[in-house]
């Protein structure tokens, strides 16, 4: 389903790693595939790797859309 989720970068770590907050949960991820990411940025996250950097407004729009999609999904068992 090609899903990837925005996560807030809370701390940069050595070796291209970072700590992010994802749905309130702290996770360690890799920044090996992106550049110029700073604390406070959002990144699109997939299987432990940041794929792209997002600004806060775009991240909020994406998270709101995901919430709507999950609500729609929960109403339709397949």
């Amino acid at each position: 389903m090609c899903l990837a989720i925005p996560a807030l970068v809370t701390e940069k770590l050595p070796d291209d790693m970072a700590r992010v907050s994802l749905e309130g949960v702290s996770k360690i991820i890799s920044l090996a595939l992106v550049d110029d990411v700073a604390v406070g940025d959002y990144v699109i996250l997939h299987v432990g790797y940041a794929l792209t950097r997002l600004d806060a407004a775009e991240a909020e729009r994406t998270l709101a859309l995901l919430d709507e999609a999950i609500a729609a999904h929960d109403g339709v068992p397949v």
Partner: protein
Amino acid sequence: MKGGLHLEVALSGGVVRSAQLRSRRPVSLCRAMVGRPAADVPAAVERLYALCGRSHRIAARFALDAARGRTMTEAARREAVRDLATERVGEHLRSTFTTAAGLGFATTPVEKDALRAALIATRPGAKGAGLASALAVLGLDGAPPAPASWTMRMLDAVGPEADGAGPVDGLSPADDPAVLAGLAGSGLAYAALPHLPLRRPETGPLARSFGTAAPRDRLAARFAEILQAATLLHNDAEEAPKSWIARGTLLDGSGFAAVESPRGRLYHVTAVDTQGRVARFVVLAPTEWNFHPDGPLVHALPGLRLGTGTAAEERIRWLVGLFDPCVAYTLDLTEGADA
């Protein structure tokens, strides 16, 4: 977010005896598009399905246009083909790197820089600038890759050249009418468990190349597609097969589009009401074919001689990675007594 794939593999004597796949993929997320203004949906699906967002945007756009009786201009087709080719290069590289890195494959700092440069060159709007030189550093310049190159080391890590594997049953554009009939008749239920009579088709690079099912061939097909897509970008999308994008209407007036996304053929079916809002929206993604509980991955595993312990787990993870799921997966490997 909840959801994903869970693979259970039972080994005995170093040979796979059984494999089962359970899925909790959230296939009905696309219902969130229903009720939205049609004009807003291409951007919304690009945001929702971020991994292959451009493919989803293109499929949605052409399906919605078809539903509203609009034609596809040649300029729009060529722009879409460029976007598909760009996304294909980036996703193939990213997926290959992340699978390999998870299995301890060593990528040098120079290669990492080249990989990152290639991914930057394939972002939306980047137009592929600097892509060719970055790919060359990785051994993807069209010439046979050097033995020490990232490309050849990766191929060697996956396995030997020939292991007697047979040809794959690939989903092709010729299957579109049957797939669309399934989506027209059963909608999300078909999208969750797609099927074709007497077949277990897979989709993606190997299916598009009609190769054999050897893991090395799977990776070679992916690398070949990177080169083909990069060449296509260089030639301004003149050589892209028409089958990369198909679109039209179903008997009930719904619009559809089928596009060749990085992981395989992606279908969107949609209807638009008289107020211009989406009344129906169904997405069938490549992962639903490749990771079907009775599909090609599950049937590729039994009988494989993989060894034991870590070696067996690595080979399974390579194979899963080469089938390229677009969601996370977990693996439960159990080993019984020697046969």
